[in-house]
């Protein structure tokens, strides 16, 4: 900051707007100073609410005023309002260089006063980052205080509380792990589909023999990052099961809203479907989803859209940051236990999103066979 000789004749040569209306009688130290820079103060005969108005004719005069305020009154203006005029390029360059060498003054709100706000002016002003706002006469007289308060708060926080680094640690930067995971997914899914093709043919034939309708059941599911994809399973329910869901929801819902809708002894499940579910054979077609990249072998259960939309909250959205998978933490820890609440399942999903790594996936896959046979019919 440049050296300024203190003066005992404060604000010499400065116009004080509104000095005849009583505001000039109050000590300057106790007031918020509005420094207007321009030949004519648009509110010369009026008081701008909440401010003691000082007027400087040009940039040089304004800078002298700021120096006097600093040295004599130990304060800085609450706001600088610069009247837009034709020689703005020179004036803006002066202000830019002034703020560059007086960093502490960068926290003063700096407004550009004009009577005509055009798009050209707005785009021009955006190039000068020391200008915080454009104001007109109406703003000056009616809305100045909230604008000054907001910009002042922002600049104070911005100057004295540097922005925290955004947290980019938890879900990114796992390229090696993701590459390994995808390699294992494709290799294992392709191999399993080849090996299990006779089983798949047998299951398909059995489904077709038991009841009319499609062999596969497809539904839209939300996976990682809420990516919506077509989810494949062997059909285990009667052909129009989805249409009967609403009826069952009304019959079984506890009134609190079912985030994960499960019904014990669901009447829509066929006898063969019951066997396929208990043996998890119905899930073999999901290997196609794995090959397509919609899912992984290990991850969070991909949710039907009616369930997924209930989880886009601050507390639960984290579950969508992990991949969707055939097996996962939920399946090996508590699957099939009746006492499992929706909140517990979401917590497990979020837990997996935190721990998600190639090594952890391997551990879950090794433990999956022990959880394959379900005890309860849900």
């Amino acid at each position, binding site marked *: 900051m440049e050296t300024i000789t203190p003066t005992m004749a404060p604000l010499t040569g400065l116009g004080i707007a509104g000095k005849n209306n009583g505001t000039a009688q109050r000590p300057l130290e106790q007031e918020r100073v509005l420094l207007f820079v321009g030949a004519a103060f648009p509110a010369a005969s009026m008081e701008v609410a909440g401010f003691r108005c000082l007027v400087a004719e040009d940039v040089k005069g304004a800078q002298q005023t700021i120096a006097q305020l600093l040295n004599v009154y130990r304060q800085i203006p609450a706001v600088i309002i610069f009247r837009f005029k034709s020689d703005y390029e020179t004036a803006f360059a002066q202000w830019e260089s002034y703020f560059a060498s007086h960093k502490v003054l960068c926290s003063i709100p700096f407004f550009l006063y004009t009577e005509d*706000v055009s798009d050209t002016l*707005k785009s021009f*002003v*955006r*190039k000068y*980052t020391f200008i*915080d*706002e*454009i*104001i*007109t006469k109406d703003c000056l007289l009616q*809305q100045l205080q*909230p*604008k000054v308060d*907001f*910009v002042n*708060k*922002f600049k104070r*926080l*911005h100057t004295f*509380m540097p*922005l*925290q680094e*955004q*947290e980019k640690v*938890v*879900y990114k930067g796992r390229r090696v792990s993701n590459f390994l995971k995808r390699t294992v997914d494709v290799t294992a899914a392709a191999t399993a589909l080849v090996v299990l093709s006779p089983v798949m043919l047998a299951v398909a034939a059995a489904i077709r023999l038991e009841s009319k309708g499609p062999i596969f059941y497809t539904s839209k599911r939300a996976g990682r*990052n*809420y*990516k*919506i994809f077509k989810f494949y399973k062997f059909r285990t329910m009667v052909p129009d099961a989805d249409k009967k869901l609403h009826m069952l929801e009304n019959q079984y819902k506890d009134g609190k809203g079912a985030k994960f809708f499960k019904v014990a002894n669901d009447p829509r499940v066929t006898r063969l479907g019951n066997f396929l579910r208990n043996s998890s054979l119905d899930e073999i077609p999901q290997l196609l989803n794995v090959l397509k990249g919609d899912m992984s072998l290990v991850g969070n259960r991909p949710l039907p*859209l009616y369930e997924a*939309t*209930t*989880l*886009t*909250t*601050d507390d*639960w*959205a*984290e579950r*969508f*940051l992990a991949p969707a998978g055939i097996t996962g933490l939920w399946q090996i820890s508590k699957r099939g236990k009746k006492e499992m609440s929706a909140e517990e399942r979401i917590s497990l999903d979020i837990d997996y999103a935190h721990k998600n790594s190639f090594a952890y996936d391997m551990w879950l896959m090794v433990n999956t066979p022990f959880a394959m046979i379900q005890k309860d019919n849900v």
Partner: protein
Amino acid sequence: MKKTILIIDDSLPIRYLLEAILGHQYTVVSAQDGLAAMSWLSKGSTPDLIITDLHMPNIDGWELLAHLSASYLYKDIPAIVITGALESVPDDFVGKYNNVHAVIQKPFDPANLLQQVGEIINGELATINS
């Protein structure tokens, strides 16, 4: 050139989720509160749409929207409010802040959000083009 959306939310998972949902069609910039958003805007950046939460530290959504909607520099930027406390939003909210086009409650339907974003951004483009 892709349009730019500024997302302001103090929940990191929500920011990631919104980035992922909107990132295919738009350039997405995210800020953890109104302070970070204002810091970005004050550098001369102008998004085509702002999606903001209301309850945030430092500078919250209420303060931010009040400033932006009354500012000659920012009032033309449309905004969508996405909040977990819809009951605290007054009925005349959208009318009060003329830049706010929609208020959405968390949990939200991402497909519905995408549709609203498209309509607002395309609507703005139509206005500009006409």
